[in-house]
Each structure stands twice: as structure tokens, then as C-alpha cells.
């Protein structure tokens, strides 16, 4: 080996710059990564932390801030107790749960069947349909709620959680179908052929091969449907005005903000309680979720 190649401080012949150090470059990359991640974490975590701190304060402490708002001087759980012991809040929670479970089940049944047929049964127009499904997802709900209001009203489901069960799938089905089409398409064609030769019909192929193999994708789609229907705001705001039919998202806002009076402590406690179920779901299914979203990204 020549002496120039071995000396890091020497200039690279013909390039006119010094030879770099792999160790130094790696250290800088790590430092930059850590700084960016810490900043990102602070930005992301500050609002929920502020919510948590506020929810632990008394109304008096919130209205008369002394010093930094990041310190709770007289911690209390009274905001939480007030909500949990309120039958109306429990009603909001139950309404959200009912709507979400129904929407998730409905969405998954429709999406899995639609995705399977669009991904595997080549029929006239299947390509156009698959693209069309995705295009419908691009129409924002702020545009759709006016015509949907007419439809929900026409079928007599205004001011009913069942109206939400009817309209939420317009948000969840297209995206879930799209995720599942991608996932099913990544399953090798030979697997269907092996199943066909083994004696399976289309339904057996779906239930015994495709659904188990595509489970990470199905879980990713389920989490998406769950999050969308749990957190939906525009549709319930438009379609529901009766408190006993309200889901959590608008219930908390409509009942805890009276005119210009904000019950900040309870608002924050309510928001945190409302955010809890998605957090639990994510925590348990995170690995599947990531596997589902990155499916097909690399050769298996």
C-alpha cells in the first residue's frame, strides 16, 4: 500500500481536498441526528405534556397563573373524577366506542373483500376501479359533509350515531382498500396457484391464505380505521346536535366550552381520556402497524 493512502491528512491526488475520516464523519452524523430528534421530540411532546399538567391543576390555579405554567403547585385529580362520574361524559365515550367498533368491522369486511377482488381477480375495469377507489380518498371531508348531510337527512339518521356509522366508511374504506390492495399484490402469485391446485376455492383462498398472510396489513388498516372514526370531528359536528348521541370529540368541546367560558382543566382531562384508547391500540399493535405500512418496501 502506498504511503499517501495510509495518511489521512494527505490530499487526494487530483481531487484537491483532504482525505476524510470515517470515524469523524460518523460522529457528526450521530450528533446531528440526536439534536434533530431531541428537537422533534420536544415539539411533539410539549402539547400533550402541557395538557397533562393543566388537567392536574385546579380551576383556581389555572385562572391565576403564578410563575411558570410547567409546574403544578397543587396537583389534583378532580377534573378526571368530575368527567368520569358524569353520566353524559360516559355516554360520549360509549357513543364513540359504538361508532368506532361498527365502522372498523364494516370497513374491514368491505376493504378486504374489495382489495382481494381488485388485486387478484383480473376482471374488466379492475384497474380503473382500483385507481378510482384511491381517488375518492382524495376528496376532503370538509367538501363532502354538505351533500352527505342531505343523504343522512334523507335516510332519517341525522342526530344519530348510526348516521356516523353510515358516513365514516366513506373516509376509511378507500384508504384501507388501497393499503390492502398493495399488501395483497405483494403476496406471490404462486401462493394462489398452489392453493388453487391444492383444491381451494376463492373464498378458502381468501380466508385460509390471504387473510393470515396479510395480517400485518389488515392490522395497519384496522388501526387507521379506528383512528379515523375515533378522532372524526367534522362529520359529528355537522350531523349531531343532541348531546346524548354525541361522540367524545365533539361532546367534550360542546359541553365544556360554554360561550366564552372554557373549563380548561376538564377540557384537557377529557382530551387526554379521549386520546387514551388510540394510544393503547398503537402500543399493542405498533410492530404490526410498521410492518404493514412498509410491506413490499424491501425484498422479503
Amino acid at each position: 500500500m502506498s504511503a499517501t493512502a495510509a495518511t489521512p491528512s494527505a490530499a487526494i491526488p487530483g481531487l484537491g481536498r483532504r482525505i476524510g475520516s470515517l470515524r469523524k464523519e460518523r460522529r457528526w452524523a450521530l450528533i446531528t441526528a440526536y439534536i434533530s430528534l431531541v428537537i422533534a421530540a420536544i415539539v411533539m411532546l410539549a402539547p400533550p405534556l402541557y395538557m397533562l399538567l393543566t388537567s392536574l391543576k385546579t380551576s383556581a390555579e389555572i385562572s391565576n397563573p403564578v410563575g411558570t405554567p410547567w409546574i403544578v403547585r397543587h396537583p389534583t385529580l378532580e377534573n378526571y373524577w368530575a368527567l368520569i362520574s358524569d353520566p353524559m361524559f360516559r355516554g360520549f365515550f360509549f357513543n364513540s366506542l359504538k361508532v368506532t367498533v361498527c365502522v372498523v368491522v364494516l370497513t374491514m369486511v368491505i376493504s378486504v373483500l374489495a382489495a382481494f377482488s381488485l388485486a387478484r381477480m383480473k376482471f374488466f375495469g379492475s384497474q380503473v376501479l382500483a385507481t378510482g377507489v384511491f381517488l375518492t380518498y382524495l376528496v376532503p371531508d370538509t367538501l363532502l359533509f354538505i351533500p352527505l348531510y342531505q343523504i343522512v337527512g334523507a335516510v332519517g339518521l341525522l342526530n344519530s350515531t348510526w348516521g356516523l356509522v353510515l358516513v365514516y366508511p366513506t373516509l376509511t374504506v378507500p384508504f384501507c382498500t388501497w393499503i390492502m390492495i398493495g399488501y395483497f399484490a405483494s403476496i406471490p402469485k404462486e401462493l394462489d396457484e398452489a392453493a388453487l391446485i391444492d383444491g381451494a376455492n376463492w373464498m378458502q383462498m381468501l380466508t385460509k391464505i390471504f387473510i393470515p398472510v396479510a395480517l400485518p396489513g389488515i392490522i395497519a388498516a384496522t388501526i387507521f380505521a379506528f383512528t379515523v372514526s375515533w378522532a372524526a370531528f367534522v362529520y359529528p359536528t355537522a350531523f349531531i346536535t343532541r348531546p346524548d348521541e354525541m361522540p367524545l370529540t365533539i361532546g367534550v368541546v360542546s359541553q365544556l366550552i360554554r360561550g366564552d367560558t372554557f373549563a380548561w382543566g376538564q377540557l384537557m382531562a377529557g382530551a387526554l381520556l379521549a386520546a387514551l384508547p388510540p394510544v393503547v391500540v398503537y402500543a399493542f399493535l405498533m410492530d404490526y402497524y410498521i410492518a404493514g405500512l412498509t410491506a413490499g418496501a424491501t425484498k422479503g
Partner: protein
Amino acid sequence: MAQVKLNRVVKEYEGGVQAVKGIDLDIADHEFVVLVGPSGCGKSTTLRMIAGLEEISRGDILIGGTVVNDIPPRDRDIAMVFQNYALYPHMSVYDNMAFGLMLRKFPKEEIRRRVENAARILDIGMLLDRKPKALSGGQRQRVAMGRAIVRDPKVFLFDEPLSNLDAKLRVQMRTEIKKVHQTVKTTTVYVTHDQVEAMTLADRVVVMNHGVIEQVGPPTELYHKPATKFVAGFIGSPAMNFIPARLANGSGALNILLPGGISLPVPEARAKRYTGHAGKEVLFGIRPEHLTEVRPNDHRPNLAPLQLTPEVVEPMGMETLAHIWLEGAEIVARIDPSVPAEPGRALPLAADMGQMHLIDPQTDRVI
């Protein structure tokens, strides 16, 4: 177990492209037939039509005497082994093998008996509880074969089953497949692009090219009596040498005139066959193993001496390949490693004219 018969089978895709152009093939009961040919020759399409995974455009396919053109794969009583194994990734080895029987509602005891029997034949008994991802390539291929064996079908179909394995494992699995066939004796149709696999496994080899069958026959027949230039060049490795030549009729005997003024005598036994082509341009075909060094006390009849100068010499260990360029035509000679061969130095060689072939360049058929 059954015969398989293909009558004028055509596969035509949209736009009129024909992948298979009306082939006829009779496969006897218990026979091991290998379809071989380069990529795009229609061999896999033919296999998939037998399996029912591709529709037939025209013609008939019969399995066990029944026309199966319109019968779905599950009712054809066939089993198939795929190139990428196609094992169900979420099922154990046992369930992979039992799946077909479970769908056909076999009793549990019978399923267990069959799976264990197949596992014994393939020596995978200790793997039954594992998932496919915990298996090596060779083990996966065995499981795929096991899945076929347990069904006890009329016909086994293999679609390039060894292509994903490394060279050493491929040779080993080739032997396994042959052993399994000798045990279960199920009629087998096997597709490969590897002519060595075809030669070693087949009772009969079907050489396909551009959607037609070039020749059907036992491996040795294809090797010694190729019908076309394609078969002559495809079977055997290194491939047969083809040298443009002229068949000359001089002083009562036929001679082959090669570029560079080389003249080789046609053996008497072949003279009658070639007389009609005297004076015409032909392609002279000779395999590298029939173009060797001059050996002392060589008693092969019809040896013709010739002096050629190699440009590249490749020692392979058990033999040495000498590459010679003769006015544009590349010739490979297979010589003993003990013979001192050097690039640029003339090498005395012997052509075994008893093994030669002449090809009509107009029709590409062997004369």
C-alpha cells in the same frame, strides 16, 4: 397415475402472440418427461396449461383419458412444485403438506399417515413443526415436494424447481427428485432451462423453441442424434461446434472442406446419407469431446488429424478447453489436461468423424 396427452395445443395471448404453437405430446403412465428450452420457448406455459393455471386457446389436453380443457386445477388431480416453492408462510411444514388433504376433507388419521410417509421419503420428519421461514432453500424445496407427494395425484408438475438453489444443492436435489420418482412412480412433467437437469432426470426430453417442439426422445438419442441445429446446440455442454463448410465430392469420396483449407474425410457409413448434398454449403457440427488431442494407440475408427492453434486455453481440472477461432467460427476442443496446450502454439488434434453431424443451413435440420 395417468397418461397425459396434448393434441394440437395452442396458447395465444391478446394481440395474437402465440406462446405455444400447436404442440402434440404423449406422456405415458409413470413416465418422467422434461420440457427444456431457452426462456420464452413456451415450456412453462405448456406446463401451466396442463395444470389449468392458463387457459388453452385451441387444442385438447387429456389427463387419464379425460379432456381437462375446462376443468379447474383443483379437479384435475395434479400436484405442482413451483420455482419459489410457494409454501404458505403462516403454516407449519405439517400444515403446508396437509392443506390440500384438509380441503379435500380427508380423515385426520389418513392425513397424518400420508404426511408422515412423505416426510419419511423426503427425510424431513424433524421439520414438521417448523415454519417455512425457518428452513433452508433445500428443505423448503423438499417440503414443496412433500406437499405434492401427500396428495398422491395422477400427475406431478415441476416448474423449474431447482433454479433458486445454489449449484451444489441443485445437484443433490436433482438426485433426490430422481429417487422420489423411482419410489412413487407418478407420471411427471418437469420444466427446466438447464439441459444437464433435463438429461439426468428424464426418461424422455422434450426440447422446445419458439413455441414448438423441436425434438422428443430419450436423453442419449437427443445427444447422439439431434434432429435440428437448435437441439444439437442446446444439448451438451460446452455446446457443439458449428463450422461453415462445403461438402466436396472428390475422387469418389466425400470430403468436408473447412475454412483455412482443412479437409476432413466423411466416413464411408455416412457417405450415402450425404451424397445428395455434395457440392453444397453445409454446417459441420462436432462436439468438443469429439475434437481431442491425438492419443497414442487410439483405436476409434474414423479419426481425422488436423492441426489448429488455440487462442485461449481454459484448464478445468479434469479436462482442458482449447478455444480456436477459424476464420470467424469459434471452435472448442476438449483435451486431456496432461497435454501441453498454449495459446498461439499449434496443437495436433483428432476429430472423431464417426460422431460428426452435417446441418443443412437452409432448413437448420440435421442431414
